[in-house]
Each structure stands twice: as structure tokens, then as C-alpha cells.
């Protein structure tokens, strides 16, 4: 299982890299994400670091089964706030190498499964 996961991760990283080569010709610009202009996330940073997955998971069940959207713990909110733009003004995937999600997850060697289905850049709304 871990092998499949790691191969998947490898594939994702590779496709991410090739993506960087084509579409995201320019580097992500520091300070271009919304969160970089804010003092704090939806919860204190220490709480977010430790519990963000619990928040997201709880919210995911509320959203899918009860239709409650747009609450402060939504994954769409994470992506909206934490995705940076490149020099041409295009969003860089939030899980791309070195970007917000990847920065910690790479260090912790835990691969998030969110983005096999979820959008990695801020959406329509």
C-alpha cells in the first residue's frame, strides 16, 4: 500500500514538476497569497498545525452530508487563502513542491490525499 502511495506521490510530484515547467514558467511569488497578509489563520497557528486535519475532516462530513458550506474550516477556504501566484498572476497549486501544503507535509513525510480529488488552486468563488 505504501508503495502504491509513494509511487502515486512520485507521479504527482513528477506531473507537478512538468506542470511547473510548462504553465508555471515563473516561480511562486512570496507574499502573493492572502494568508501572507493576515495575522492569523482561522484558528491560532499552533492549533492549526496540530488539528487542521481534524477540522477539515469534520467540515467535510458537514458539507457532504448536511450541505453546510462556506464555514471557516472548509478546504476550499484553505486553498483560497494559501495559494500563491506566480509572476504572471496565475495561481500555483497549493500542494506543489515548496508551496504551503508541501512545505510541512514533505518534512513530515505524510502525503495528503485531498488533492487527488480537490482543486489545488482557488476556484470560481
Amino acid at each position, binding site marked *: 500500500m505504501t508503495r502504491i502511495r509513494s509511487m502515486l506521490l512520485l507521479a504527482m510530484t513528477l506531473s507537478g514538476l512538468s506542470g511547473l515547467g510548462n504553465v508555471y514558467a515563473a516561480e511562486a511569488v512570496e507574499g502573493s497569497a492572502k494568508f501572507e497578509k493576515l495575522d492569523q489563520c482561522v484558528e491560532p497557528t499552533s492549533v492549526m498545525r496540530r488539528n487542521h486535519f481534524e477540522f477539515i475532516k469534520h467540515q467535510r462530513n458537514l458539507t457532504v452530508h448536511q450541505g453546510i458550506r*462556506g464555514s471557516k474550516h472548509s478546504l476550499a477556504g484553505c486553498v483560497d487563502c494559501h495559494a500563491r501566484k506566480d509572476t504572471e498572476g496565475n495561481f500555483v497549486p497549493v500542494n506543489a513542491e515548496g508551496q504551503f501544503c508541501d512545505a510541512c507535509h514533505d518534512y513530515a513525510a505524510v502525503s495528503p490525499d485531498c488533492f487527488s480529488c480537490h482543486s489545488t488552486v482557488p476556484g*470560481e468563488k
Partner: protein
Amino acid sequence: MSKVEQQGRREFLKGTAATAAISIAPGVMLHSLTADAAPRTEAVTDKVRWGMLIDANKCADGCTDCVSACDKENGLDLVNMPEGADESLWERQRPRWIRQVSLKDNLSGKITHLPMMCQHCEKPPCVDVCPTGASFRRADGIVMVDRHICIGCRYCMMACPYKARSFIHAEVAEKLTHTPRGKGCVESCNLCVHRLDNGQTTTACQDACQHQAIVFGDLNDPESAVSQALKKYPSVQIRADLKLNTGVRYSNI
């Protein structure tokens, strides 16, 4: 939620439905609606049951406006054929939520056209058979898939009498924020649930239909356009013999 508020929301829906009916430019309507609408903050309840009436007489030959609108709204047009795939095989593997079907009556030869999609049964066979409970019926009558717990066994696809479901056969590079999608899960029409949850009251297919063949709304509200239409015109359920009490009904098949 108090009774007063409930009433208020219903009145609001009725009001917008009425304006929508007389409005010539639905696009303009939509905008004003989005401006008012806010994301849902309380759990959906069974006070509402979303449903549709489709008038096959109004549905035009060769028109696929509802299909393209659905593809666009739900990101199905972003699902690309994988490199090296066989085109005719891929056509049978790519996902579809709504499709155009033409029927010929065996006796009279009369041709009818109609869109087919998930019929949002009250007693959905897909929900009965799903081993993990990923296929579920929301309190407001929408049958949908919780992708987080779908294991991709496809038993629901075997069980659906309407062939309404699609399996995602390939990695999806680009997805919409409101319609997550990934390889290995099953999905189907969810009546544009993201619109409803954000306070809108129409589906993409309904908005796209130039012939007003689709009436969408709350089946539990006797004043809603869909309830009124159902009261006025004779209608049928597809595979009524299965007694699934579908949320999508048809007239003039």
C-alpha cells in the same frame, strides 16, 4: 430554525421562481440571486425535497444544451482523454451526468426526446447496495456519493436502473472547487448541489434549456413551480414498476 424563518425562505423561493418565470434574460436574474444568496449554515432537512418535471414534448431533437451546460457546470468537460487511450473505448468510459435519449414508440413510431440523469429516488437501489454508505440520500432528497468513503466497487452502478452513474476511469488533472473529482470513485448528477447549498434555486440544465422543458424545485412545497406543473400535467416515473418514488418525473414520454 424557527417557523417564521422557514416561512420567509419559502416565500423568498416562491418570489424568485415567479420572477424567473417572467424574466426573459435568466442570466440577469441569476446575478441578482447570487448577490442575495449566502452559503447554507444549517443542515438540510427533509422539509424540502428537490425534484424535477421534464416535458418530453418540449425537448428538441438534436439539442444538447442541457448536456453541455452540465458538463461545464460540473467540470465534466475538464476530464480529458488519457494519452494513448482508445477513442471509442474512452467514449464508453468518460463520465456523464446527463444524456440525451431518443425513443421510438414500437406501435406508433412516435419519436420522443428526453434528458436522462439520476432520478433521485426516494428509495434508491444504489444506496441500498453500497457497502460503505458512500452512496447516500441527503435529507433534501438529493442522491449523491461521498467520495471520501467510496471504495470504487461499482456495485451502485450495477444496481442503478437508470444507468445514471459514472466511474472515473482516469486521473483528472483539473477540477472545479465545487465539484471535486478523482480517479477510482463513482459519481452522478447531484442536482447542482453546490448551487442549492449556496442559496441558488436552479440547476445548470434547467437554466440552459431554451425550450423550458425542465422545471425544477421543491416537491414538498405545493406552491412551487414544479409542484404546480406536476398537479397540472400528467406525468410518469421511469421504471415506475420498481416503486422507487423518483424525484425526477417526465410528461409526454
